[in-house]
């Protein structure tokens, strides 16, 4: 339960971090909060040549509004976003989702961008980003690019991030006027990985549902507003399309049933919070 030996660099700036990442090659790893990475290091699932610590880069610790988006820097902890004054008004989906992330003790250290980079298919922050249609900012020595959530997360624990890139910011769209938002999940214990996580958005004409924990990445579907049996049918079709898998915690069948039952509940809740 001890990591292999690695070099360590506490980066003072993004420039220093991307330069070290380019020099370090495929075995260099970025660490910010470490809440997902360090367990993998302790289990030796990850064996880096160098850890580049970006958590102390002051310029990357921010939450700000920019062009209809709330941008969160890569040194910003989940707890900072949880306590951000504008959260309930600007990002109501995240206000509902963040309390489900791990525990108080891990949110204090874990970062928003770190969770997106880790790309666990059941995680709340990637699911929220996908459901809202947000994007990530990737920075390397050669410049910056933005990717939509959909293009970014490519599978279980895998993303379109190149080995020389850092996720330097996450951009979550600000609440749509009049829209309602809801989030819930099913886990065996409080703070455990979700068996199924669900994010719902309802506007005057559309309903949207994002599902985590069933497919290999967060998956989002949108419909014209549906009710009653038409909604049941749509959710049933979505559940079958997601497939799901059996594991020690739940069967694929149980996961699909959660999509149907909790999916309906989340959509109804999102509808009822429309303003």
């Amino acid at each position, binding site marked *: *339960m001890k990591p292999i030996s690695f070099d*360590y*660099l*506490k980066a003072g700036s993004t420039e220093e971090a991307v330069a070290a990442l380019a020099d370090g090659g495929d075995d260099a790893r970025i660490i910010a909060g470490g809440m997902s990475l360090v367990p993998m290091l302790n289990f030796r699932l990850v064996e880096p040549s160098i850890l580049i610590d970006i958590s102390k880069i002051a310029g990357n610790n921010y939450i700000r509004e920019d062009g209809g988006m709330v941008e969160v820097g890569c040194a910003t902890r989940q707890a900072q976003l949880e306590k951000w004054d504008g959260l309930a008004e600007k990002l109501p989906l995240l206000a509902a989702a963040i309390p489900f992330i791990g525990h*108080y003790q891990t949110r204090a250290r874990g970062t928003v961008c770190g969770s997106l980079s880790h790309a666990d298919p059941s995680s709340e922050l990637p699911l929220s980003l996908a459901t809202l249609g947000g994007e990530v900012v990737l920075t390397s020595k050669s410049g910056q690019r933005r990717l939509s959530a959909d293009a970014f997360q490519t599978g279980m624990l895998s993303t379109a991030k190149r080995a020389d890139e850092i996720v330097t910011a996450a951009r979550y769209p600000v609440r749509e006027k009049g829209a309602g938002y809801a989030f819930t999940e099913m886990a065996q214990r409080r703070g455990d990985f979700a068996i199924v996580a669900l994010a719902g958005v309802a506007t005057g004409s559309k309903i949207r549902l994002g599902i985590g924990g069933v497919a290999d990445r967060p998956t989002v579907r949108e419909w014209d507003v549906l009710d009653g049996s038409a909604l049941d049918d749509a959710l049933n079709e979505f559940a079958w399309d997601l497939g799901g898998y059996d594991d020690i915690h739940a069967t694929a069948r149980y996961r699909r049933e959660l999509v149907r039952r909790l999916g309906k509940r989340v959509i109804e809740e999102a509808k009822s919070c429309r303003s």
Partner: protein
Amino acid sequence: MPQLSKDARHPVTLTLNGVEVSDYAEPRMLLSDFLTHTIGITSCHVGCEHGVCGACTVLIDGVVSRACLTFAVQADGTTVETAESLASDEGELSDLQKAFKKHHGLQCGYCTPGILMSLTAWLKENPKPTEEELRDMLSGHLCRCTGYVGMVKAVLDYCENREG
């Protein structure tokens, strides 16, 4: 800051419970091991060593942290508080510790230092928690003796009766 080589031990200086301490650590050394085996304190317990059980929880610059998910070199220059900081120099327990004792908030005591450190940070942000909020926060710690009942009673009693 220069890159620290994996093959060498590097100076790490902490303000630990109000006292400056210095020693050396390889980059891969966990803060939990540094505190226990290098510095020699006894309250930073290691249960799972992957961030789940919470027994190693300490405060780093006031932020609640799993010492088993932190490397000693990352903590260089910070202020670290452990359960040793709670009782007075004369050995008198803090009010929170007394409440744990009164309500049987511990049995074997292995998880207790981590829980006390989480509470130290959390009760500053949430001075009057409900039982539900408290149980949600305690979900970040595993205790296999008490069933949490005594612990919950202790914290609620402490919050109700503390001064200020």
